[in-house]
């Protein structure tokens, strides 16, 4: 009781210092947790406590990933997945932004289309994957379309909300200073839209990747999703995990790049 009281009464700054552990300790704990997890997986699998046929072994998975990488087998597949992600994001963001500006500018179009956009957005897009494969084939297009169908709504809703929240007086001010409609667009609306686009950047790129992977998984001859689906078809747990292992590095790399891009373009928001 007494100890609780004294800690509650201490100043905020001191509390923060007391409660935030050293970065070294955090790093050590992280590595420790990884070693415990991977170590017990390896041990349990090697000693046959769990069936290695279903869960594989970390050492096998890493060896498989290494073999795939050194033989170059996985590189072309990874490249295809990244290309699909890139096109899905760029086209989805572009279409989403155009749609947002259209609905923002015309309230009649807004009122007419909004219910349909809400319904389409509520549908789980993944179930469209077979239809897109049917329409656009097993190649790159069907995966890009699936990615676009997800990204377009994320970008649309974030930019649309952002535009609606632009202070009308900021627009008035630009007009009062002698600005034309084009100036309002260039000085106020597009920068606002971009700032909202960048704030949803990581989510939308992430979903573009999901679209690509799911599309490949459901029907393709290429890409990381295909590698995973192929291994699964062979009952090759090691192959599935190796595919996921490589995929997770792709995700980390993309996130890192997006953070750099976001920081670069939103420098005006930083302290």
């Amino acid at each position, binding site marked *: 009781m007494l100890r609780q009281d004294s800690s509650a009464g201490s100043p905020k700054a001191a509390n923060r210092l007391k409660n935030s552990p050293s970065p070294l300790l955090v790093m050590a704990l992280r590595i420790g947790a990884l070693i415990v997890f991977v170590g017990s997986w390896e041990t349990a699998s090697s000693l046959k406590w769990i069936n290695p046929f279903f869960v594989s072994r970390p050492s096998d998975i890493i060896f498989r990933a290494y073999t795939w990488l050194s033989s170059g087998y996985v590189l072309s597949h990874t490249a295809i997945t990244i290309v699909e992600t890139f096109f899905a994001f760029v086209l989805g963001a572009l279409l989403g932004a155009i749609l947002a500006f259209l609905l923002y500018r015309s309230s009649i179009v807004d009122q007419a289309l909004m219910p349909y956009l809400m319904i389409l957005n509520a549908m789980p897009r993944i179930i469209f994957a077979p239809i897109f494969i049917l329409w656009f084939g097993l190649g790159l297009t069907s995966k890009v379309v699936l990615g676009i169908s997800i990204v377009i709504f994320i970008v649309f809703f974030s930019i649309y909300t952002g535009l609606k929240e632009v*202070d009308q*007086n*900021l627009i*008035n*001010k*630009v*007009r*009062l*200073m*002698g*600005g034309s409609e084009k*100036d309002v667009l260039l*000085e*106020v609306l597009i*920068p606002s839209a971009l*700032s909202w686009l960048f704030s949803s950047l990581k989510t939308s790129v992430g979903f573009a990747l999901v679209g690509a992977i799911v599309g490949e998984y459901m029907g393709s001859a290429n890409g990381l999703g295909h590698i995973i689906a192929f291994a699964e078809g062979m009952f090759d747990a090691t192959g599935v995990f190796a595919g996921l292992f490589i995929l997770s590095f792709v995700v980390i790399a993309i996130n890192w790049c997006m953070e750099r891009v976001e920081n670069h373009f939103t*420098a*005006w*928001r930083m*302290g």
Partner: protein
Amino acid sequence: MRRLGVDILPDTHIDLEEVSVAFASKAGETLALENVSFAVQEGEFVSIVGPSGCGKSTILNVIAGLADTLSGRVSIKGKATNGIPKDIGYVFQSDLLLPWRTVFDNVALALKLRGYRTEKMGPAVEDWLTRVGLAGFRNHYPHQLSGGMRKRVALAQTLVYNPELILMDEPFSALDVQTRNMMENELLDLWSGLRKTVLFVTHDLEEAVSLSDRIILLTARPGRVKASYIIDLPRPRNVTEVRFNVRFRELIEQIWQDLKTEVTVAYAASRQ
């Protein structure tokens, strides 16, 4: 109909004749302003005072071409206005800076919109940054500045393009008292040098008396001109010191007697 140019003094800057404004509301149309008439001379500093919701800001918006009138006419320098007039500056209640532009680029905005080249507008922008004491902050972004500094940027942003008429809508209401008095003095200094026409909206009677040449008092909604007062305090003024002047207290008391009834009416209406 009065013929334009006959009964208007040659140096009349703004002239409002029988201006009424209505807004669409739940109960159909609400009258915001009713038959408002007054004129502002060139170089005059006029404040509009009235209870909250009486349409003070609407008057500015009508002059700036941001709100439509129901009836009546607004003329600037003898010409009836149509849309946004040229040569007008509007300082809003919030600073409304572009958050993605630096202090320099924000101040340069109007000049850029008017098609000036960067080399040509540089000195004017630098000059205004120095005048409002922000020369050392030219590369900062708005979020890195205090409220008072942002307000000074907004002021420089408007004064840099040298508009003849400046509309100000409670520009200092969000500031703390000390910063506010500093800014009011700065505004008076700038105004006495430039002699622009200023139409200033405030709900703060002391602010209005300490700054203005004349005060126009509006009634509770719908806003009508109730009275007009000449503020015969000596200039140059210091807004903090002028408050110790006996005449200042007399003026406050006189205007407050008229304002009080309107405030009571507005307050009763807001509680219904």
